């Protein structure tokens, strides 16, 4: 059983340091089940097997939770800021080419490529989390996925505002805003809306 558990944990798509935690924890759980069964005169092997339950269900649950231990808020902030700056510069310097659909696709591709691993699963876990009561309002705790979402959404606008100010000082006051500038914002809000509704309506597993 221990070998099976080790093979199972090794095959999980979770960070390596979390595999050690999961293996130690599940190993302790099985050992406890075995000891209790022996003490109570039951079959230890059957008790161990019963305690483990469905490995596939365990895999799904662990692989949806564990990757979040790898991604810190600072890590997400850095990735979000980098993606935001790249989008801002590309759309600003790309000329007519980046004004329409191509610019929108490029911006979304950058955001997806630089997203923290399993950001959607992280976001779902964060949106399912118990609300935090603040002094003024209550809301979801801000985890790495929400940090990435809001950073990647707001950074391009910060860069563009800075560029407008700098250019205004040199006499350029015309501001031209292509619709592709809003692609990331619209996509992020759409994902937040859909996942927020799902987190409240879809029964928890």
């Amino acid at each position, binding site marked *: 059983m221990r070998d099976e558990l080790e093979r199972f944990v090794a095959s999980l798509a979770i960070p390596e340091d979390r595999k050690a*935690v*999961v293996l*130690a*924890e*599940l*190993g*302790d*759980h099985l*050992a*406890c*089940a075995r000891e*209790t069964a022996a003490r109570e005169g039951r079959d230890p092997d059957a008790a161990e097997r019963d*305690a*483990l*339950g*469905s*490995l596939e*269900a*365990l895999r799904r*649950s*662990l692989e*949806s*939770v*564990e990757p*979040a*231990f790898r991604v810190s808020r600072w890590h997400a902030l850095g990735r979000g800021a980098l993606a935001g700056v790249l989008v801002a510069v590309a759309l600003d310097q790309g000329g007519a080419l980046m004004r329409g659909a191509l610019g929108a696709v490029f911006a979304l591709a950058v955001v997806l490529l630089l997203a923290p691993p399993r950001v959607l699963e992280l976001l779902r*876990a964060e949106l*399912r*989390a*118990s609300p*935090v*009561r603040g002094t003024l309002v209550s809301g979801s*705790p801000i*985890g790495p996925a929400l940090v990435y979402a809001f950073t990647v959404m707001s950074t391009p606008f910060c860069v563009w505002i800075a560029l407008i100010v700098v250019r205004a000082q040199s006499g350029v006051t015309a501001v031209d805003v292509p619709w592709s500038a809003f692609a990331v914002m619209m996509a992020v809000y759409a994902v937040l809306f859909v996942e927020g509704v799902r987190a409240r309506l879809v*029964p*928890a*597993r």
Partner: protein
Amino acid sequence: MGRSRDVVPRGALRALVLAILAEGDLHGYALARRLEERARGTLKIREGSLYPALHELELEGAVEATWTRAPDGRRRRVYSLTSAGKRTAKGARAEWLAIADLLQSLLGT
């Protein structure tokens, strides 16, 4: 009493875990056993739901885990409620008791 249930809604399991940890620090197996004893055989807590729920609560800062050793020397993680977790436990308890009251009045006794 009917046969034991293998599936507990995630929100309910989180509330149950928080309620048990509010009584004292426990490792995963002891926590599962405590819940099963409390349910008098009507509930079966499996690893597949317990540890992911504990790890989610850890990510949210509601519980914290410390490493200890079992009597035979193997490593063991013991969970305890944080101060934020104590508040979450109170809220979850009130919420699920309200839901239970509502269901009781809607579905009858």
